């Protein structure tokens, strides 16, 4: 049940924010129930069960890429020659649902920032250095996001 899982997640969030004071817990339970209801309306579950192993791998990738992205930016910003070549790279998306999750991950990866879709339905990614293999990297991330969300692995 997606609703139960979300309720538990919101309640966990409440406990972290407010502590487990019993008086507050009543409000927390109500707030978590309401938040779970609203989230089901705004973001209906889209089939496929979340796979913990793949989520863990995605989390580790995110940590590693955060480090790489920060170092990359620091290196380019502090280099007197300012070695950047910004530009837009169209990336074909195979993921139909879970695109927002993919875009969030991509925005935290080194040198890429999704901007929007173009007329051909491709995701435009702003690359800080267009010489880097932006599309290939995005494809790998997309496959990992699809696996984490329990979607069919995109083929092609």
């Amino acid at each position: 049940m997606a609703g139960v899982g979300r309720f538990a997640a919101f309640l966990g969030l409440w406990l972290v924010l407010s502590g487990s004071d019993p008086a507050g817990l009543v409000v927390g339970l109500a707030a978590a129930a309401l938040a779970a209801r609203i989230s089901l309306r705004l973001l209906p579950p889209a089939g496929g069960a979340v796979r913990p192993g793949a989520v863990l791998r995605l989390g580790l990738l995110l940590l590693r890429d955060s480090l790489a992205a920060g170092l990359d930016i620091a290196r380019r910003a502090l280099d007197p020659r300012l070695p950047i070549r910004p530009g837009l790279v169209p990336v074909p998306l195979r993921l139909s649902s879970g695109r927002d999750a993919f875009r969030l991950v991509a925005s935290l990866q080194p040198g890429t920032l999704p901007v929007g879709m173009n007329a051909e339905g491709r995701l435009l990614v702003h690359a800080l250095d267009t010489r880097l293999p932006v599309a290939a990297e995005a494809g790998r991330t997309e496959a990992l996001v699809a696996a984490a969300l329990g979607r069919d692995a995109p083929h092609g």
Partner: protein
Amino acid sequence: MIGALQGLGLLAAAAGAGFFLAGTVGLIRFPDTTSRLHALTKADNLGLGLVVLGLLPFAGSLGAALKLLLVWGLVLLAGGTVAQMIAARVRGTEPGA
């Protein structure tokens, strides 16, 4: 006297501050809005992550430590989302973006 963990924490927080500085240099030096967004989101993500990591030994309780990690997570979520919205907004208004 501070413990070894606290000492490591201070080092991590100092490194985090260094990334905030580098991100700010990028913000000033990069030529267009979208490139500047890269500098902000990436450097601040890592900078804040290191500051949070560095503060964990000083948190004193599990609740406070979880709260610190939650702050980092929320900033990642907000930063990654807002950067894309700003990038979409400026798209086409300047060359190369």
